[in-house]
């Protein structure tokens, strides 16, 4: 991978502290390219931007640092793109405040594919988490990429749901392109890099600062064909993504929650305001992409299908235990009581079903079905 001249100048502009996205946009629009900005007279600069900022640029006119950085990005196999560059995602050009520089790890081509944004609470319920993973997986199986923000909770569940289903996924970071935040997603980070792409408008080593995260949401919605909100509280950050998607003319989907559920207040409000209510991946596939995965109406709910199919493969006693479980975590003692086949049989069956991957423990001692 070779970087052209313009990349070096973009990197140069990116390293000057205090020059915001809006300033950059003015400059590049006025001068045509960053190269021209670099060579522009001080007087010329002050015509476009405030003199203190022009001074910053004036004092920083050297490319050594940018050249070194370019080598570093090349060494780390990170693609640096900018609007107009061949690898810059085309969809991003359609949003008003598209990033002037974009760092990409993994496969840049996937950014032009069909993508659905899946976002939601960083502290979801077990149910929300499982549903996010399930829907993402179902979409990914139909070759729809999943894009999200690699945050805790729903974001992480969406990414790993897509990966587990063998699909592709894109993570948009709110921090530097080499920064894994939050740390517990480190493994996911490398998996995404292999099976999709990680992108950020922040360069090497930019720390995770809270203000940057809502800003990156515009990239998530900008690259998506539609945005699915799984679980969101009344004032959740995911609603920002939904709003941005609407502004950008994208369809917004929401998973409904119970009416007194605090965690789903945001999604329920979205539905009230006209977001499409999603109870199955097919809802999105059909509406957005015109893919009709199943012909039979009775088989429309793939979640129910899956559980029904699972029960058929079990012995009577196993089914007795399995049917106690759902997506709400159930404690071992309650399962014993409900199954009615005694503690010893129940725990043996729970262990066996766990090792067969039919049920799982989201927390030790609590069980849910695998979907």
């Amino acid at each position, binding site marked *: 991978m070779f970087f052209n001249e313009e990349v070096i100048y973009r990197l140069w502009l990116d390293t000057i502290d205090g020059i915001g996205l809006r300033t950059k946009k003015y400059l590049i629009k006025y001068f045509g390219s960053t190269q021209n900005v670099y060579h522009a007279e001080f007087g010329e600069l002050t015509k476009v931007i405030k003199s203190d900022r022009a001074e910053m640029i004036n004092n920083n006119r050297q490319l050594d640092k940018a050249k070194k950085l370019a080598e570093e990005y090349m060494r780390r196999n990170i693609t640096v793109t900018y609007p107009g560059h061949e690898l810059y995602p085309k969809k991003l050009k359609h949003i008003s405040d598209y990033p002037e520089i974009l760092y990409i790890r993994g496969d840049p081509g996937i950014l032009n594919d069909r993508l659905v944004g899946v976002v939601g609470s*960083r*502290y*979801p*319920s*077990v149910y929300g*988490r499982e549903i996010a993973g399930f829907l993402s997986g179902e979409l990914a199986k139909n070759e729809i990429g999943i894009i999200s923000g690699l945050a*805790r*909770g729903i974001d*992480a569940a969406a990414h790993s749901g897509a990966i587990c289903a063998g699909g592709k996924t894109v993570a948009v970071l709110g921090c530097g392109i080499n920064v894994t935040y*939050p740390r*517990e997603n480190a493994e996911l980070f490398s998996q995404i890099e292999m099976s999709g792409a990680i992108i950020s408008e922040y360069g090497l080593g930019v720390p995770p600062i809270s203000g940057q995260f809502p800003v990156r949401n515009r990239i998530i919605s900008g690259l998506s064909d539609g945005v699915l909100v799984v679980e969101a509280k009344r004032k959740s950050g995911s609603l920002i993504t939904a709003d941005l998607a609407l502004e950008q003319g994208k369809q917004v989907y929401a998973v409904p929650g119970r009416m007194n559920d605090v*965690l789903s207040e945001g999604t329920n409000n979205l539905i009230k305001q006209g977001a499409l209510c999603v109870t199955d991946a097919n809802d999105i596939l059909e509406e957005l992409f015109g893919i009709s995965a199943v012909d039979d109406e009775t088989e429309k709910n793939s979640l129910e299908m899956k559980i029904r199919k699972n029960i058929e493969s079990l012995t009577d006693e196993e089914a007795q235990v399995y049917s106690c479980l759902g997506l709400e*975590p159930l*404690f*071992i*003692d309650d399962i*014993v*009581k409900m199954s009615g086949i005694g*503690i*010893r049989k129940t*725990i*043996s069956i*729970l*262990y*066996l079903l766990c*090792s067969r991957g039919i049920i799982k*423990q*989201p*927390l*030790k*001692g*609590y069980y849910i079905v695998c979907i």
Partner: protein
Amino acid sequence: MFHKVSSSAVMGIDGVIIHVEADVSDGLPMLSMVGCLSPSVREAGERVRTALKNSDFFLPPKRITVNLSPGNLKKYGTGFDLPIAVAILLCMGITPGENINLDTTLIIGELGLDGMVKPVNGILPMIYDCCGLGYDTCIVPAENAKEAALVDGVKVFGVESLRQVIDEITGTNSLAPYKGCDSHTVLETGKLDFSEIKGQESIRRGMEIAAAGFHNVLMTGAAGAGKSMIAKRLPTIMPKMTFEESVQVTKIYSINGMLKDGMGLICERPFRSPHHTITGHALIGGGVNPRPGEVSMAHNGVLFLDELPEFNKNVLEVLRQPVEDGRVSLSRVNASYVFPCDFMLVAAMNPCPCGFYPDRRRCTCTAAQIKKYQGRISGPLLDRIDMYMEVRPLKYESMFSEEEAENSKSIRERVERARLIQKKRYEGTMIYFNSQLEGALVRKYIKLGPDAENELKTHAEHANISARGMNRIIKLSRTIADLDGSEDVQKRHVTEACFYRNSTSRMEGGSDYVF
């Protein structure tokens, strides 16, 4: 004039013979004592001299030399006062009567300045270990007589004053030997019973298995879930101690001076629950003259560590060897000591610093905090635990339900049966319980059926467990099969064992769950 009597001292937890020699000869009047003595023994000279005077014995103005042999053993304690006094008096011309043979008599006791005999610690190990060496009589402080009488075949004289001892020896006023009574001491467990634990089926079953095979247990649960309550009731379902086990326990309690007046043999399994501020030395034993620590006090019983993550990390790490080996070895300049500590480790912890996780309505801890809290317990220590159990606070309806849960007595019957099977299996070895099998012995004694073997193999591949973890599952399966009365270990036993030794992390990616 030279004379010698026999006494005893405690080394580690064993009694050893100490010969007390005295010689009275011409020279400057003085009392000199030799024989690798600690200060507490050296002070005996002053006590003996005054006690003799106050017992109306006249100490002649001669040079008196006292030697405690063997000379290479460091001697501690106050039990030598009485034998020193007797040896000196023998040198001064007291002649033993017909009714006592001083060559086969042990004399132990501390003297007050008034000539009264005071009790000492560690009488049981002294008498128990020395009676096999040809000693058949002992003269001990009256308060210790009951303890000494626990040893079969030893004539025990409980004495109150130096005068009484001399009268006994000379035969002028013979004492009646102390007759041991059968009263056996039950350590305070009060009126605890397992029937008070309601609804928590998985933990009730788990504790039954743990008690039957002496398996280590870790309970995790929110504050107020009943972890301590369960642990305290554990001794009530554990099998009764055999006589040898009781003696071992009583010896340790004797050395630590915890056998109070009138306490005989300890028959109930000990339950020790040290506070989490305990130091390493207090836990495993220590001191210049090492004394057994909490782990040894819990020998053959339960060591309950409540709030496990609150313990000092270093303290927890010193637990590793005792848990694995069932004994503590301490080395000092003059000797090495081995204390037995075959205890059942029962640990309890909260899932997070505030204690309410995973109830997210009440728990306010961040994911990082929870991870850090649970990470305080090291992998190697966790690996030595056989069973992990989750405890959840009871719901109101179960708490006050009329339904009567099974009581300790009937659980214990099943446990005793399993115990009997184990006893038969390990006859002629030092092994009492399945959990004590080590290394190659595991496979030697435990045969798995083909189905069970397969299941174990799948689990090993699935859960990626260590060799030690594997052995622990096999031992646990054996205990479950024993409870079942089953000859060989079958698949259902292995699956149940796998359930309780579930190596899934409590946090598995789910630190951010809400309930």
